[in-house]
């Protein structure tokens, strides 16, 4: 099986890789690019631990071939913080103890980020339904939902919103 050359952008960095036709994006991230933040919990799109954002869309990276990433902009957990400045969701997850073992946490953070980018005032029900594709076995979801709602509340405050807008990364 010959390998396919793919050019993509990951967390704002231009990235090239080659992969076999049947390798998933998750395989590529973890095994070829050493980006082990996205996790494989099931390999079949049922747990969300591999969640990434592709061209602004929340997806399971285990349900995408590496080849399909050609020309796409991919956001993973490794790019969620802005240098040493944590994304508000990351900080709130710590504040609310919204993680125990932490293996599902990258997936949840990416999924919640995607939600708040679309809806800055979700109800508890909306948060729960949006995150239903992310399984957590440790927390019972309670503190995760609280952290997301609290982040949304903070992000709606005018000062913080402007600051967040000013933080958009500039492409090289």
């Amino acid at each position, binding site marked *: 099986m010959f390998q396919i050359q793919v050019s993509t952008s990951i967390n704002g960095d231009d990235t090239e890789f080659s992969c076999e036709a049947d390798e998933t994006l998750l395989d590529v991230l973890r095994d070829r690019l050493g980006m082990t933040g996205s996790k494989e919990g099931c390999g079949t799109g049922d747990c*969300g631990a591999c969640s990434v954002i592709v061209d602004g*869309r929340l997806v399971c990276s*285990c*349900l995408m071939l590496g080849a*399909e990433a050609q020309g796409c902009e991919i956001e993973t957990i490794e790019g969620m913080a802005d240098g040493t400045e944590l994304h508000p969701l990351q900080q709130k997850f710590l504040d609310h103890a919204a993680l125990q073992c932490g293996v599902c946490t990258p997936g949840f953070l990416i999924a919640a980020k995607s939600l708040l980018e679309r809806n800055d005032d979700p109800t508890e029900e909306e948060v729960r339904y949006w995150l*239903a594709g992310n399984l957590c076995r440790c927390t019972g979801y309670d503190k995760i939902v609280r952290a997301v709602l609290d982040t949304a509340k903070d992000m709606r405050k005018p000062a913080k919103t402007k600051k967040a807008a000013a933080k958009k990364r500039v492409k090289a």
Partner: protein
Amino acid sequence: MQYHAPATLKDAVKLLASSKGTTQILAGGTDLLVRMRTGFAEPDTIIDIKRISPMCKIARDGKGFSIGAAVSSAEMSENAALAKAWPGVVEAAALIGSTQVQGRATIAGNLCNASPAADSVPAMVAAGAKAVIRGPKGKRKVAVEKVCKSPGKTILKKSELIEAILLPAKPARTGDAYLRFSPRTEMDIAVVGVGVCLTLDTKGVCTAARVSLGAVAPTVLLVAKAAGALIGTKVDDAALDALAAACSAAAKPIDDKRGTREFRIHVAGVLARRAAIIARDRALGKS
């Protein structure tokens, strides 16, 4: 395994016709990659249709809609006009899997996977949707309820693929709805699925209806008797009872790990009633 991402429909059809061994069309990949991962599919060739730009669009088709085969469920939900005209279809598509899955999954793929439990199919059938099938000799339109032959098998020939799903122009005072029963609220597969589409006249009397059941037979059912229970009525309790009974009678489910026969038969009736109420209220302009 070979991966191709043709830029035109013509190229895709050529590839389909010429490739050796097993060939799979890749749209959302939310079924195909799972089957590959679990050893149920080992295609020699994969043809990714997402670079074919008309396949990625939702267009108006007269007063109806043409939903390209590569359009994701999420994109359908985000199309205001589509969501307004056919909320049942859009909601059904939005029940597939999870948010992540909906970001990729397509209703064309959902149809072609030919699972008896496919969520979008009963809703499409109730709405009177048609599949546009493209092959080397041109294209043909087939009613969605005729596309699946048996679990896992469609009527598509080796060199054919679905180009788009057409939704007809929605008559005035028409409402559609889809409900499914699953053990969990999300991330689940239909144990029973019911799609109802009905049209009322100005007096609130039902003049046309289509009732479709999923997960209760090897392929989707279009239940004429159930529609008949609604036509000519104001979709009142008596009509709803008759509807439920007709749906339960039409259901021919199996016992499997997701539900027992008796359960599916009973719940088909329960959901039909509930879906018809939603469809009726939508037709009456109530949200």
